[in-house]
């Protein structure tokens, strides 16, 4: 009874909030529903096959790719596709699609233990773990330790884990069943201290790693490896039994091929052929507005989300392929983390020859960072005006790359054409 009332409440509040134009109506309804039935997440996932996806970077994209892959055979799949990755967002999505037999949920790093216990998920994908929103998460090692304890207490789970990330390997090492996937780790600086013994992890040029202090903690042998050929333009997943599947995506960036392979292995763990899973993912061309090309204030732009040093270092590779103007928008609201010190971990020096406009609530922090990086730039606090400033010196049809952290990105996504 309470459960049915909670589902109705969730849907009603969401519908109202959508009608009033107060956002996409995912969090408000979920909160109300959880108030009526605190065990709503548990009740809404009962009888469904649940997969959870977490990690610092790539959660939203991997969740989307896995949902598409699991739906390839016609199964109905529900997913929190807007990136609301805490329990209110989960119950809002689940309450809206009662007929779905499978659920793929993106989960905030901190919430994984709680959500795993409530949903009794059978598959957990661990992508990577590095510094992000430290005012909220404090320490990445603490997060890894909590994952480890949660997975040790869930013997029914199959974990799909990035073997190249020592913190992920530490967390997944406690699980009963793990499929190790080697997809690389662009940002290694948070993983040098050994999570097992407080010693030191050393990385080899091929991405393998081991604790050199002698506790024996070392990279698990991967069951599947991501390989790049033709100067990093062609990607394959290579299984230990010799099978190879080419990955063809409509999404840009090496990191998205890593996300796709993680999703393919998770689909395979749930009885779906990896080749068909990857084929289904090929049609995904934008995820929650990321990588979309759209017009902002009359200017053609490519909107990109980058919210922490690991994400940025992958992204600079992508942005460096071009030489057009760039707008960087930085906020420090609740969902971004209150301390933008991490800007100093991003190698902005690589943008030295580009036209750069600094914008967002914290454009002054960014401006000081760019000054010491030797990047000439203009500061314009209003993001929409900043797009205009960036375009003013370039050709009319020149696409402007607009890179924002979480709320800055959301603001630009909602901006008028």
């Amino acid at each position, binding site marked *: 009874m309470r459960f049915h009332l909670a589902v109705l409440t969730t849907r009603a509040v969401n519908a109202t909030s959508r009608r009033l134009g107060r956002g996409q109506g995912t969090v408000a309804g979920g909160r109300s529903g959880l108030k009526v039935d605190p065990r709503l997440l548990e009740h809404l996932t009962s009888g469904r096959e649940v997969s959870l996806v977490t990690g610092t970077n790539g959660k939203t994209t991997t969740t989307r790719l896995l949902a598409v892959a699991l739906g390839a055979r016609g199964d109905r799949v529900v997913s929190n596709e807007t990136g609301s990755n805490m329990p209110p967002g989960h119950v809002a999505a689940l309450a809206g699609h009662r007929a779905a037999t499978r659920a793929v949920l993106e989960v905030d790093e901190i919430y994984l233990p709680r959500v795993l216990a409530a949903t009794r998920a059978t598959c957990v994908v661990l992508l990577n773990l590095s510094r992000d929103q430290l005012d909220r998460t404090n320490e990445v090692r603490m997060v890894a330790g909590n994952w480890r304890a949660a997975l040790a207490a869930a013997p029914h789970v199959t974990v799909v884990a990035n073997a190249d990330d020592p913190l992920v390997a530490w967390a997944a090492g406690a699980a009963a069943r793990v499929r190790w996937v080697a997809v690389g780790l662009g940002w290694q600086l948070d993983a040098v201290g050994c999570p097992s013994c407080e010693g030191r992890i050393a990385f080899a040029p091929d991405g393998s790693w081991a604790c050199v202090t002698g506790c024996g903690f070392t990279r698990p042998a991967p069951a599947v490896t991501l390989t790049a050929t033709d100067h990093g333009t062609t990607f394959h997943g290579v299984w230990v039994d010799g099978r190879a599947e080419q990955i063809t995506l409509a999404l840009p960036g090496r990191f998205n091929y890593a996300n796709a392979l993680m999703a393919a292995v998770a689909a395979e763990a749930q009885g779906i052929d990896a080749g068909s899973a990857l084929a289904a993912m090929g049609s995904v061309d934008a995820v929650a507005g990321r990588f979309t090309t759209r017009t902002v204030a009359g200017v053609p732009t490519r909107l990109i989300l980058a919210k922490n040093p690991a994400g940025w270092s992958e992204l600079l590779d992508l942005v460096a392929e071009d030489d057009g103007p760039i707008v960087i928008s930085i906020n420090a609201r609740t969902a971004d983390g209150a301390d933008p010190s991490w800007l100093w971990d991003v190698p902005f020096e690589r943008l030295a020859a580009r036209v750069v406009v600094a914008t967002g609530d914290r454009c002054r*922090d960014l*401006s000081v960072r760019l000054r010491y990086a030797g990047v000439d730039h203009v500061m314009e606090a209003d993001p929409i005006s900043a797009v205009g400033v960036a375009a003013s010196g370039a050709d009319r049809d020149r696409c402007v790359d607009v890179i924002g952290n979480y709320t800055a990105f959301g603001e630009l996504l909602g901006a008028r054409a």
Partner: protein
Amino acid sequence: MTAALRIVVVYPDLLGTYGDGGNGLILARRAQWRGVEAELTQAPSDAPLPGADIYCLGGGEDGPQVRASRSLMEDGVLARRVDEGAVVLAVCAGYQIVGKQFPGADGAVHEGVGLLDIATSKGAGPRAVGEVVAEATGVALPALTGFENHGGSTTLAPGAVPLAHVVKGTGNGDGTGTEGAVCGHVLGTYLHGPVLARNPALADLLLRWALDGASLAPLDDSAEDALRQERLGAARQARRRQSRRRQK
């Protein structure tokens, strides 16, 4: 000066969590912009620490912090160079480990490098996370602004002078209302931001210490000043909101 000013960022692989590596870059650039030759080195924890005129230590997590302290003591270069007059800027975890003792992840007491006459223990209250404003008392500087994120409570012994008095935030968190500590040319603080990005006058003080008091030509710090004004203004507003809430 014959040789370049040598600036070393100590163990960025262990003490680089909160963007504090920027402090080394800021010192190097502010020297170079004035025509002082400066050489910036990132010194990883698996190699002997190079000799330098300024050492920068940053924030790190509990586990790696223990490792960093142990390595610095085994290596011995940092303590020896401080005896010879080198300047040290130590932030957060770095601040704790240059003291006499600090707590590890398990709460156990670990011995620090002992450059500052301070001792840190696990704080009793919640972790101190947020914006800080502090009036400098230990050195002559304008108000300090930064962001703190730590669970330690640091007590100063008579050999160390508080860096500042906290106006907003927690700072040392030992009930004295102080923030940071200074002893000779070793300066410790809980402030990130990084601290030198938000307090360029502190960067210049460290440079003057390293350059034997040489006077430094002024720089165009309008970007830094704009950031300082914004942060100090935001903190004032937050304080006003807080006191209004208390009156209600």
